[in-house]
């Protein structure tokens, strides 16, 4: 299941214990019990909890944290909803491509939760692109190719091929 793979990736990347995460039978919503006994529910919330509970400190400033949060929201409201009768895929890719023009990672200079979430969210979309389209969104492709090389982040997802051809440029 896609949601689980993603949470495992988050947990492993931040070296947080994954054990407590359960999925509701009704709609597969994940939830986890925090240290002080409260339950947190929802994909993004659980992921955020895992990223903070881990041994790896994210070391983000408040501004960076806010930026990460905005990208998590972008993933839920834009990436997850693009396709047939929602937002056009090309629009999302174009936006991301423009944003990544001068960046290696989404926020700061190392991978954050935003990169993990967008990588998992975009995998399905990018796997359907032709080489020519990947070339068109070259910044997204570069970022994606870089992220997917980390096996902790990729987990069981397929390694997607990227190849530049002078044919398309």
């Amino acid at each position, binding site marked *: 299941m896609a949601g689980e793979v993603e949470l495992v990736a988050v947990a492993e990347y931040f070296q947080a214990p994954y054990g407590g995460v359960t999925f509701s039978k009704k709609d597969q919503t994940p939830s986890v019990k925090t240290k002080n006994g409260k339950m947190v529910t929802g994909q993004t919330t659980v992921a955020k909890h895992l990223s903070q509970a881990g041994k790896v400190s994210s070391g983000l400033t408040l501004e960076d944290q806010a930026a990460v949060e905005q990208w998590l929201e972008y993933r839920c409201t834009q990436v997850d909803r693009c396709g047939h009768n929602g937002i056009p895929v090309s629009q999302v890719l174009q936006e991301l491509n423009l944003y990544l*023009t*001068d*960046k*290696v990672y989404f926020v700061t*200079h190392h991978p954050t939760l935003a990169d993990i979430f967008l990588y998992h969210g975009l995998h399905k979309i990018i796997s359907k692109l032709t080489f020519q389209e990947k070339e068109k969104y*070259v910044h997204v*492709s*570069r*970022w994606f*190719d*870089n992220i997917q*090389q*980390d096996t902790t982040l990729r987990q069981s997802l397929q390694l997607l091929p*990227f190849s*530049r051809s002078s044919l398309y440029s």
Partner: protein
Amino acid sequence: MGFGDLKADSGLKALNDFLADRSYIEGYTASQADNVVFNALSGAPPAKFPHALRWYNHIKSLDRNALPGVKKDIGAYGVSSAGASGDAAANDDEDFDLFGSDDEDEQEAEAKKQAALKAYHEKKAKKPALIAKSNIIMEVKPWDDETDMKELEKSVRSVAADGLVWGASKLVPVGYGINKLQISCVVEDDKVGTDFLEEEITKFEDFVQSVDILAFNKV
């Protein structure tokens, strides 16, 4: 090998092209390779090299001396670094060289090869390029017997392009008083294609119903 002069535009352009679909100089993490190339730059690349500038800013933010990996000669990085220079670097790394003398021979052979290659390229550059030409015979069909065939031929011959020369033409009767125009032309393959010709001729839609390629011969 390498990027050339990284303080000049030509080197920066090579670096920019190289980084278009890569985040780092080597592999998928920052390494000493990035540090070496970073230090070879005279400063931040200008905005017309967006990929190089993005990479520069990213590397600048990292602790460059703490990056993993071993420093290599700058020539070892870049597009075609997998070949000779990579081997040379590998040779340098070895403390103990069993075939010391062979190495010199190799270098000599390599130098000879390079000289021969250079001579070949010079010769090649002097030789004029052969221009590939084709002789095309086309059939242009009018709408009906009332189409002015003289006007049609004039229109067809008015199509002009670099590397295109019109040749002889004749009218061939089809039946019911209708004639079709057969016209030959010689084109330079690199400059003019059949698609272009067909498109241009069918633009005279007052006269032309259709265009067919009757024969296509290399000259």
